[in-house]
């Protein structure tokens, strides 16, 4: 059965988040002074407000204190948040996705120790890293550095993938050093983790933890949509050539081109997210045996950058002014494209999958 219906719960979450972003995030995130400044520190007050709304624990089961949201719902929420502020969207998207995976990878005792405090604390975030682990008696010893770890500076629990499995390492454990990533070419929060003789008890060994599959393309989708909505609104208001510019064929076609990219990108993101919720759809031949998240990742960030540039062009000179949001949408879209796992890597993934 082919159906693109969202459930009443999904529709409600989307409306709730959209409303929250419009009221609480956009007025702060898009204020001229913040747009103009070279440094834009994370909006922690709004991040916590979004946590209180339940967006941090979205993917946990209801038993564990979450909303039991599936991957598609998480992707929808990421788009909505990113339309207001990609940094908040990235932090929450990483944490919510990792929490969802963690719940499935842990024993009841581990859930009690790690997930229960996570669910209670609005400022509790998660990060996923890689390191070498060696057995030392009943414990594991972690070694090695891991660069560009999303959420590292904020996380209260590090999930460290090793050959043995995923080790759960609370922040503050001896032998873990965190360094914030210099520069600002990332969304959310990013840093380097270094492990040096970091001792972790065997009781902290969990199963495989993975990050949200469609986070990056869903993030870019929100950025592209924000640019589109800004251009659409402006094109109706701005009069040149004797009429609102939206009535000129050239601008209307440009807006249509943006809409085309947005809808195509969203279709790719939703399909990948839905597929991760329904692995049986590959087995029954409803979906192709391809890395659908790589398809979304290869298409969306590139298309959204083109969309943001076209949207900015509708604003004329204002499209390059730092007190307006358009330059930020372009930059944010570029970050998605070039943040290390951008479309180049995704295309290669797809190439590998095809060629076997």
């Amino acid at each position: 059965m082919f159906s693109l219906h969202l459930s009443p719960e999904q529709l409600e979450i989307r409306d709730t988040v959209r409303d929250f972003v419009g009221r609480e995030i956009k007025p702060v995130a898009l204020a001229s002074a913040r747009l103009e400044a070279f440094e834009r520190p994370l909006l922690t007050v709004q991040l916590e407000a979004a946590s209180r709304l339940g967006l941090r624990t979205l993917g946990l089961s209801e038993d564990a204190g979450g909303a039991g949201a599936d991957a598609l719902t998480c992707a929808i929420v990421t788009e909505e948040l990113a339309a207001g502020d990609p940094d908040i969207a990235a932090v929450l998207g990483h944490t919510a996705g990792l929490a969802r995976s963690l719940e499935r990878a842990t024993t009841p005792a581990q859930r009690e120790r790690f997930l229960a405090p996570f669910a209670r604390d609005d400022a509790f975030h998660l990060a996923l890293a890689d390191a070498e682990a060696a057995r030392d008696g009943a414990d594991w010893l972690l070694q090695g550095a891991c660069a560009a770890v999303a959420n590292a500076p904020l996380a209260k629990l590090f999930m460290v993938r090793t050959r043995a499995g995923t080790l759960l390492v609370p922040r503050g454990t001896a032998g873990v050093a965190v360094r914030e990533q210099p520069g600002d070419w990332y969304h959310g929060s990013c840093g380097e983790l270094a492990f040096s003789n970091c001792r972790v008890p065997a009781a902290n060994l969990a199963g495989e933890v993975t990050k949200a599959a469609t986070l990056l393309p869903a993030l870019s989708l929100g950025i592209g949509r924000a640019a589109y909505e800004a251009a659409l609104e402006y094109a109706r208001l701005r009069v040149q050539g004797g009429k609102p510019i939206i009535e000129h064929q050239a601008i209307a076609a440009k807006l249509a081109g943006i809409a085309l990219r947005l809808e195509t990108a969203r279709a790719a993101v939703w399909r990948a997210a839905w597929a991760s919720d329904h692995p049986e759809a590959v087995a029954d031949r409803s979906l192709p045996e391809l890395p659908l998240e790589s398809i979304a990742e290869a298409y969306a960030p590139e298309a959204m950058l083109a969309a943001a540039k076209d949207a900015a062009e509708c604003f004329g000179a204002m499209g390059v002014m730092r007190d307006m949001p358009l330059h930020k949408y372009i930059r944010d879209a570029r970050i998605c494209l070039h943040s290390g796992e951008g479309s180049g890597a995704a295309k290669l993934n797809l190439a590998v999958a095809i060629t076997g």
Partner: protein
Amino acid sequence: MDFELSDEQREWQMKARKFAQEEIRPISLQRDAIEDPAKTWDWDIIRKGSKLGFRTMAVPKEWGGEGTGFVTQALVMAELAKADSAISKSFSQCWKWSHLIAQSCTEDQKRRFLKPFLDDDTFVLGKGISEYDAGSDNRLPPDDPRAGLKLRAERRGDEWILNGSKAYIANGNIGKLFFIDARTNPGVPLRQGITMFLVPRDTPGFRSGKVFNKSGWRFYQNGEMIFENARVPHANVVGEVNGATKKSGGGGGDTTGGDLFGDLELAANALGICDDACESALAHARATTPDGKALFEQQLVQLKLNRMHALTEALRSFVLRVAWEHDRRIHSPNPGLAMNFSTDVVQEVTELYMDLRSGAGGEMDAHADKLVRDSFIWSHLAGDTVQRLKVARRLGR
């Protein structure tokens, strides 16, 4: 056909290359990284460049300038832009309007304005057309008299009284002399009702407003200009009253001014950015060895380098052909087409360069970031739909 440059052209090119690489390049990223948009300008580099002739090189020899031709100017712009696009534009902006002085000003005006311009290393020029509510309407004006710029000029005796404001004006806060387009007859379509005035900085009733904070071309200053009963002598009218577009556009109806020069200017500047991107990309691909092998060995990297160079060389051919046609006063839609084309080229080339520089998660090379931001300026100056439609109309004439 002859693709060879003359000795004089080659000499200017080499002089520009030396100045660009030794003086401009070292300050390029530094000026770009200054957060306050009003503080990015550097008089020192302008003074140094001016002493070498880069501020005044378009002024005819009989008036004491260098009298260079368009091919030379294109070569110099590209060389300067290869080190910093915005600084190149800061010099060529002066050529743009010295072309206009030479072409359209009376002997008296030339004496009053060209002389001080030549004598003062910090004398830079600007032209005020755009206003908040009039951008595209000045480029492609509809017949409705309400469309287009609104700054009003009314005659009172031997003076004109100017009221209104301009926005996004290049050198608006630092220039010493401006060409200001103002409405002298608001009841007729734009092109029949505007007059161009020479407005020196110390004109009573004129002041600078804010400096715009741009994402790219940060060195190059765009400002607000405010006129409150500003008094300009009638002797400062350029050409005829209600004849501004005739003068600035050489009859072509081009209200963006600069006549032959403006389109070539943006295309030649873009070429310099592309040269920088190509050279930097190649150097990076050779020097970077992820997994022990040069980046250059990857097929996808080679394909990107191929594309970057193909586009850049195509643009070079187009730019030099347009400059050559200008030197022979051959009129065609080519300058406009080259300008439009340069938008597509400079953006694709710099984005490919950025692509090559990315890879390490969470970091981006500051140089690639700057080139991409600078190139986006072309979207509204050279490659927006109105600039393309304008050239298309010319093709259809």
